[in-house]
């Protein structure tokens, strides 16, 4: 989750939607969301329904959002951070305002399991409303992987990346890892059969050794570049987010160059993450912010977004409204036996995060 420059580029459409407060009297809501994380008609329909004009800025890294929040006076009304560790940390730092649940009808339709899980970082679900969820697994160019490893090769395993023998064979067609220490360490720990959330020194050292062992085979560490590179055949294995890989799949289909992209949840386990909505403490339009969250709680609205972004949403009433192809895809709405293999990243202290990040810099630069 760190390519911030794409974020800059993505600001352009935001300018087109509206930057300049020419008509001050008009009611507005300022949104700060990931790039490509609404359906095309989500915002126009909101304006038609409520008369509130949405103004969208986008980012593609939690860190960029976080830096703005910590600096204060960001001017945003609704933001969409990943729950762990980001939103958890923001709650601790007191950056959010509690939600007025009387203005949010439809909260009861949200998956109680996800709400219970969020309650561990947000007691009483005071601050956060889940938006989308997904997994971090493997994006594959099926044909190229099979060409390199043989037709019998197992595709749903971290060994494609972390087994030096397989990685060496896949090196030339391209392997990419997320530029995110938490994600990569938990994947390496899962591959080793250890607790993916472990902070034990011996475990981390073992994981670091695994990553260093395949370092020479990794083309780059990046959190969004792989989408287009998978789609145009520059990569054959990418550690990536489920919906992003599926977007690559769709782009490859549109390009019609015979590139077949698949997403797999590795058998050793994969991270399950949730992106949430929250209202910053200093939001200039809190009422409009509530109206926007209420709009996204509408099952049809959120189902349309899922259809567009290929991520599962936590709204139980929306599930039957989603296209069958998506709803029945075991990689997006995993069946219970797959879900059992998913793990939720633990919360970490700032000191632990910094230690991990510095270790990460060292590993990436191979020192």
């Amino acid at each position, binding site marked *: 989750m*760190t390519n*911030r*420059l794409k974020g*800059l*580029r993505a600001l352009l459409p935001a300018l087109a939607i509206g930057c300049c407060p020419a008509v001050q009297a008009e009611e507005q809501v300022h949104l700060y969301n990931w790039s490509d994380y609404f359906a095309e008609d989500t915002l126009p329909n909101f304006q038609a329904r409520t008369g509130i004009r949405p103004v969208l800025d986008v980012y593609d*890294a939690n*860190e*960029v959002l*976080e*830096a703005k*929040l*910590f*600096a*204060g006076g960001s001017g945003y009304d609704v933001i969409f951070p990943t729950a762990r560790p980001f939103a958890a*940390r923001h709650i*601790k*730092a*007191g*950056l959010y305002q509690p939600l007025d649940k009387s203005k949010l009808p439809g909260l009861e339709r949200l998956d109680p399991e996800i709400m219970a899980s969020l309650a561990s970082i947000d007691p009483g679900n005071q601050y956060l409303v889940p938006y989308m969820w997904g997994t971090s697994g493997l994006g594959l160019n099926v044909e190229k992987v099979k060409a390199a490893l043989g037709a019998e090769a197992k595709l749903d395993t971290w060994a494609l990346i972390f087994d030096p023998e397989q990685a060496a064979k896949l090196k030339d067609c391209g392997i990419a890892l997320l530029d995110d220490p938490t994600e990569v360490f938990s994947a390496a720990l899962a591959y080793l059969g250890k607790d993916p959330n472990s902070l034990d020194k011996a475990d981390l050292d073992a994981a670091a050794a695994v990553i260093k062992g395949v*370092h020479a085979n*990794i*083309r*780059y*560490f990046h959190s969004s570049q792989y989408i287009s590179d998978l789609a*145009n*055949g*520059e990569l054959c294995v990418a550690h990536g987010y489920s919906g992003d890989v599926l977007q690559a799949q769709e782009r490859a289909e549109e390009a019609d160059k015979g590139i077949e992209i698949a997403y797999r949840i590795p058998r050793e386990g994969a991270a399950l993450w949730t992106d949430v909505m929250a209202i910053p403490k200093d939001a200039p339009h809190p009422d409009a912010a509530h109206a926007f969250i209420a709009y996204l709680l509408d099952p049809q609205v959120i189902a349309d977004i899922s259809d567009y972004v290929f991520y599962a949403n936590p709204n139980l009433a929306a599930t039957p409204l989603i296209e069958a192809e998506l709803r029945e895809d075991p990689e997006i709405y995993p069946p219970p036996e797959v879900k059992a293999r998913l793990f939720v990243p633990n919360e970490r202290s*700032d000191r632990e*995060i*910094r230690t991990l*990040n*510095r270790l990460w*810099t*060292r590993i*990436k*630069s*191979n*020192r």
Partner: protein
Amino acid sequence: MSIGAGPQSQGSRRLSRLVNIGIPYVWLGVFFLLPFVIVLQISVAEPALAQPPYTALWEWIDDGLLQIQINLRNFMLIGEDDIYLAAFLNSLWVALVCTLLCLLLGYPMAYAIATAPERWRVLLLMLIVLPFWTSFLIRVYAWIGILNSGGLLNTFLLWLGVIDQPMQILHTQTAVYIGILYSYLPFMILPLYANLTRLDPTLLEAAEDLGCRPMRAFVEITLPLSKPGIIAGSMLVFIPVVGEFVIPDLLGGPDSLMVGKLLWTEFFSNQDWPLASALAILLLGLLVVPFVLMQRMQQTMDETQP
């Protein structure tokens, strides 16, 4: 500022002088000194889970007791962990290589433009300056399309038959050098051009009259006289490249470790503004010292050469 003619009182002249001298100082104070002091202050704070994410430098405890807390641990950590030293050295190395490459490529170009017929010069200069009309970011992105394995360069080389498999250039250090060289070349050419056009052509004519061959005339006359241009161009390339972040991030591979990138990690990934500020202060120190030395040298040179 005085516009009208006629005698002026001593007072208004003094005022106008004060304004004239004052503006640059106010500018420097507001846009250089003040930000520097703010960054310096953050660099001796401690990171905190708050808004803003660092501790205050001072705190009033009641009864007029002022508590000032200066935390030097950030600087100590940078000294202890050799990854920072490695990043500094690597950044300096990259900047040095790029400056030399820019000089090697830029000098002949600047020389060619400066010696071209008058009517061609404007056009040639335009060709150097024109790319600035497009965003820097977009130009760096364009290099991704040129360098990647299905990109223009590889397709062209394959077509020529020079290579039979695409070369992996993107995400390597070579791509970083190409990107930097491309982006910073104008900063080398423009000061060199400005310098070279001002050289007195009669000196070269005199040399020729006295039987000096062109190559020797260049080495003994043009090159020494263009030294200020070389220094100015090298500074304009070297200093920003040391802190360069965008190009290594977009075009570089996993092992392109540079200070700019580390600073980003500390600021964004770690939310450790104090450590990021400490890095920025050290980077500034690293760049100011050679700059001041260079200026000293220049000054003594000017004094000894009347």
